[in-house]
């Protein structure tokens, strides 16, 4: 049985999520300390939006509630309540991990950063020694699902944050941002964030202007940008292809006449103006000028809304990939039920072979003993092979597999009490 318990953005507010966020060291300690006693296999995905424990319990006494109790012990001083935790069992748990990796359970739909976070969770669990055969397949399958969803659907396409949408807008006007000249008006938090995004996109000519010159210098030093005096930026406006304004001024700082004069000087070449301020910094009438593209926060938000809607339309395609991969996982998982029977069958054949070898050992030429040993082993392997393949053949449901296993047990008279748990034999191999 596979369990998934934890908190995420569906079940708990950010204050709860952040207090259960676990570092790699904490995860390692938790997994090492509980592997073998609390669970046989386990992994923890801990990001800013979720802390989720996936586990195969060590015995029947361990259930979801017990796993939650152990998780809560990690933060005894915090007020973590039962209703903050979700509990998923087996098929639900496997399906959930696949959905997480496919980014359809993400707070920002299609945020593919989660794929690397799931991969990291698997690596941490593997280093902690809590990953066996089942979780190897589980995490590999989930990562495969995430990659398929990313490549076969458009769920990760289009910017869904203000700064990314602004940069996306710039790339719809200019083909190469490297050579474009960008002016940031205002050195506050928004201006700094926009500057960083533009620099990350390869902008090489960045200038910053601010009413308080020292603030502009401080930000420019940090970003290795040019500084332009606030009083001189209107006359230099024509030099810039992209202007981002984010000041706290109550009156427009960029007027219609300023832009009109600038457009004349720049021979009407396209000018993108992003007004990220509230109240707005740029006179809205500048959008009436040819080749001037003025976008304010509402316009950028509408890009985001449109992109999110497109992502939402991809959910059915992503979900069908998840279903396909979850079915594949369980087709494999169900064959684990046959593992104890196969081991028992092999052991029984080996006992017969050893007994017969012992009986005839004295009658065999000592020089040929090794050859006969090898010969009998080969015969047994050949006889067992079709039975093993037949029993492990993927079944459409567990009852079909169970009846197949029972048939083999009856035919070869294998005793019930020797059966070990299938998961136990599956783990660690």
């Amino acid at each position: 049985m596979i369990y998934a318990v934890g908190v995420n953005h569906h079940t708990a507010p950010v204050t709860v999520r952040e207090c259960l966020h676990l570092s790699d060291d904490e995860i390692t300690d938790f997994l090492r300390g509980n592997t073998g006693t609390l669970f046989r296999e386990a992994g923890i995905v801990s990001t800013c939006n979720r802390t989720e424990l996936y586990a195969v319990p060590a015995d029947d006494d361990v259930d979801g509630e017990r796993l939650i109790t152990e998780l809560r012990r990690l933060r005894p001083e915090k007020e973590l309540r039962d209703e903050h935790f979700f509990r998923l069992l087996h098929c639900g748990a496997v399906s959930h991990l696949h959905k997480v990796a496919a980014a359809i359970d993400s707070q920002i739909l299609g945020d593919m950063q989660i794929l690397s976070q799931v991969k990291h969770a698997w690596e941490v669990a593997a280093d902690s020694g809590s990953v066996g055969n089942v979780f190897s397949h589980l995490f590999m399958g989930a990562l495969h699902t995430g990659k398929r969803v990313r490549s076969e659907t458009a769920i990760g396409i289009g910017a869904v944050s203000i700064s990314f949408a602004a940069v996306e807008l710039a790339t719809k006007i200019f083909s190469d941002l490297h050579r474009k000249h960008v002016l940031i008006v205002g050195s506050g938090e928004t201006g700094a964030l926009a500057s960083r995004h533009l620099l990350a996109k390869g902008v090489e000519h960045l200038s910053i202007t601010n009413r308080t010159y020292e603030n502009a210098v401080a930000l420019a030093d940090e970003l290795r940008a040019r500084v332009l005096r606030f009083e001189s930026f209107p006359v230099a406006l024509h030099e810039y292809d992209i202007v981002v304004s984010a000041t706290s001024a109550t009156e427009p700082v960029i007027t219609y006449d300023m832009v009109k004069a600038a457009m004349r000087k720049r021979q009407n070449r396209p000018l993108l103006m992003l007004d990220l301020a509230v109240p707005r910094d740029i006179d809205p009438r500048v959008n009436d000028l040819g080749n001037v593209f003025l976008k304010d926060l509402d316009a950028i938000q509408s890009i985001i809304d449109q992109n999110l809607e497109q992502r939402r339309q991809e959910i059915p395609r992503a979900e069908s990939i998840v279903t396909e991969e979850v079915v594949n996982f369980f087709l494999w998982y169900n064959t684990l039920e046959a593992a104890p029977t196969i081991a028992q069958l092999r052991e029984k054949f080996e006992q017969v072979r050893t007994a017969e070898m012992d009986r005839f050992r004295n009658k065999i030429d000592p020089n040929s003993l090794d050859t006969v040993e090898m010969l009998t082993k080969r015969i047994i392997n050949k006889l067992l092979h079709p039975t093993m393949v037949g029993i492990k053949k993927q079944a459409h449901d567990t009852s079909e597999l169970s009846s197949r296993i029972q048939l083999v047990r009856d035919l070869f008279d294998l005793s019930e009490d020797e059966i070990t748990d299938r998961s136990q034999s599956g783990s660690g191999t």
Partner: protein
Amino acid sequence: MLHFLNSVAEVLLPVGYVLTTFMYAMDFRNCTALSGTWKTRTLLATVTLHFLYIGMHTAEYGRCMVTTPFEIMSLIAFTLALTYTILELRTGERGTGVFILALATAFELVSAVVMKMPGSGQPNPVLSNMGVGFHVSFAIFGYAGFALGAMHGVMYLLMYRELKRGGFGSVYQNLPSLETLERMTVLSSLVGFVFLTVSMAIGIFSLPVVYDNFSYHDPKLIATGISWLIYAVMMVARYAMHVDGKSIVRIAIGGFVFALLSMTLVNAFLSDFHRFM
């Protein structure tokens, strides 16, 4: 056998073009798994079939495919589709496909209709002259370049409108940047301009030789001259005067519309000696 294969290809080609354009349109509107996977394959199959058809047609009739209106239009369709295929394979840019392929499909459909008209398959003996053959071939490539430039110009204006209005729909999502579209408009028009210039130069020398009634006052010569002038103005505006992209694409679209209309009207009603079809 060759005749039979050509007949089959003549039916399959318009179907292939319509199907390809339909798939690109589907993909442009709302990317589906089917159109996303099959559109480029269908395009490649159609272009390959067209290429084979040109070869088979040349083999069957023993002359280049520039002697009848049907052949010329089919060749323009092929030039447009092939140019787009190369662009898509080299740059990975797929958003412009529906526009260019729609134009190619229009030419191929007109070609298929003209082909069925009585007497349309009769080649003009003048075209067996090497110089005239080159003249016509270069003119075809020239007009194909203008068509491609105009289509990119239309896309530029659509994108410009979308950016100004703030609609951010399929056009915004699928088309490349304004700067790229402007560059493609100018480049295609420049290629067309060079080919038309060469075609005119060859025509000036070869046409008086094959036509006894050659005249510089022929309406088609005048119309072609005006088309050439429009594109010459466009090149000067772009490269010498650095006029903005929107004005440039308007000239490119205007130039193509003028060339198309003037050629249609002149061919139908006015041209004197200068008729190949």
